């Protein structure tokens, strides 16, 4: 047991390579809205930026965020090529409501279910909403928790920079 921890600690302490951003994991199992099991490696956008947003049907600020972005999503896509991928952390209490919720709100996002919250844990999400910007190489370049109106303008400013290959 002690050896195990020492090993992990040693692995972390030894051999620090050049700093680089963490990538989103590719091997976590999630589900599409029609019940198909897929891996997180499906989250791709042909080298263009991705907004990855963790949300739940019962979370008011999450709904405000996704509804606010909906109004400007088409413009954002045309301008930067960005794609929004929404990960629902609804558990079995409300997972059956996710598809009706997404359609009822007319969201055009790519939506996946993370019922067992494996992806949420792998991304160190504590509270929802929690939003990430992923660059063309699949690296996490920015993250933010909570949402208030106006936050979408800060978000697109950053996405523009990422789309232009600038550091943020």
């Amino acid at each position, binding site marked *: 047991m*002690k050896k*195990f*921890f*020492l090993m*992990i*600690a040693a*692995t*972390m*302490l*030894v051999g*620090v*390579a*050049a*700093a*680089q*951003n*963490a990538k989103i994991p590719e*091997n976590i199992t999630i589900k599409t809205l*029609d*019940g*198909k*099991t897929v*891996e997180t490696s499906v989250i791709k956008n042909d080298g263009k930026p991705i907004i990855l947003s963790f949300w739940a*049907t019962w*979370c*008011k*600020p999450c709904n405000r965020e996704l509804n606010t972005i909906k109004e400007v999503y088409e413009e954002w896509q045309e301008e930067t090529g960005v794609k929004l991928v929404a990960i629902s952390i609804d*558990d*079995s*209490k*409300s997972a*059956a*409501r996710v*598809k*009706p*919720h997404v*359609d*009822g709100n007319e969201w055009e996002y790519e939506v996946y279910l993370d*019922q*067992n*919250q*494996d992806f949420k844990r*792998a991304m*160190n*999400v*504590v*509270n*929802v909403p*929690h939003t990430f910007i992923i660059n063309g190489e699949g690296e*996490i370049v920015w*993250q*933010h*928790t909570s*949402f*208030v*109106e*106006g*936050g979408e*303008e*800060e978000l697109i400013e950053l996405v523009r920079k990422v789309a232009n290959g600038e550091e943020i």
Partner: protein
Amino acid sequence: MRKKIIIAASVILFSFSAKAQGILGGHVTGNVQLDGQISSRDSVIGSTDVPQKLLSNARADILYTNGDFSAGLRYEGYLGPMLGFNSQYAGQGIANYFVSYKTQTLAITAGHFYEQFGNGMTLRAYEDRYLGIDNAIRGINVMYRPVRGVTLKGLIGQQRYYWETRGLVRGVDAELSVNDIVNALAEAKTRITIGGSFVSKYEDDETILSDIDGYKLNLPLNVGCGSVRMDISHGGFGLQTEYARKGQDPSIMNNYIYKNGEALWVSASYSQKGMSANIQAKRVDNMGFKSVRSESGEMLYINYTPAITKQHTYAFLSMYPYATQSTGEIGLQGDFMYKFKKETFLGGKYGTDLHINASLIKGLDTTRIGGIGTDGYTSTFFGTGDTYYGDMSLEIAKKLSGKVKLTATYGYVVFNPVVEGHEGDIHHNHVVIGDMTWKINKKNVLRVEAEWMGSDSKYDPAVDDKRCGDWIMGLVEYNFTSAWFISLSDQYPYKDGVGNYYNISVGYTKGASRMQIGYGKQREGIICIGGVCRNVPASNGLTFSLTTSF
């Protein structure tokens, strides 16, 4: 133990400085949360003095990933567990550790893991840090996909019980995606997934005496629980169902009766852009399944029977949150959403959202046979007993201009105190809510919320349900960019109630870090302030919270 803490602390400190550094080609990420509370006695709301003065819950997750390999450990410290958390959490140490290897066809996890079979009716190991529930399994979990469309899972382990592990749980699950297996259906619009699971627990014998002449019960040492499920979707139509059965499982939850358990859940939905409907039905009969038969608290649940009622977030609508009665209930829930298009009579310039929900949960129609050591009771499948919970809500959301959004809600809630183990009359509550968000300019946003609740319940010191009576509430929240917020709120029972719940909170968010400090009186429930939802216990005094992910 001490050594473990030192190692964990050094790993945490190192990880901070390393900030998702590449290490041997891998990455270290994590999150840290610190909550604190100074609470004092208030006989009106029922809070008591805290001997330690300061209570705190702390937690840090450190995750190392390198391609298909990952490992993690979690420090938890409850140096005076916060109010609402079980006192058995007191202490600190490494509460969770695992190593995992995952590819598309094979995944193996050793150590602590979370898992769910189907909808969780046979097995759901999960955690909710704000509720203080963590029934992680410590053992081995394997997932294997022999061919495309077939997922097999198997696990064995013991469940977390505060700082120990208890019980012995074994389980297998299979899920088949029919469209992936049958080539002719690969491109079919209709998608079908079927699955099944079986979970068994083992527990040593013990002495439990029956009602009759003090005979010792012949307890089953191995108890099995199995289920079948199906998920069909066709364009906008969706149908999901799961049926579970459990063998003889006398426990403190069912008063040591030998009746088999049974549960059925069905969800049907239809949706298209701007319109959706969902109906769910559920029947649960004697389905409490824990790894230790004498455990009566929140811990050691192996399975989970989801509550189908809507999870309301406004304070007065969620005043009586409903949780499934695993001993027995039958219920129905419906949801309807509609978007009135822009430039129509009801839609106006920006469109209007309509959301309706209704639910009704009743007890089962049962006939008593006997007490401890018997089958307990018989029940009819479609028969119903007492009303446990019912609600209906109508919500209209509308953008009045580019800057002002308004949401108006009417709700009606029926609640039987018997589901929380109290005697008393059924409460009938009417709730009216107005919620306005005003985006003053790019950087300043003001949100105002007003709620009213009219109830036929009156506060009775003998029952001591502090939610009784007629209430009003006001909340003002001011946000300066997405960085700063301040919020003021007060809930006051102006008739037949007790208490006065005022609160002031200030928060600061930068990236994935967030700090919040609050002062006031709080009752337990889901609270959403400054853009984040979380569950909080009752308190009177100062609270603070710090979270960060890296």
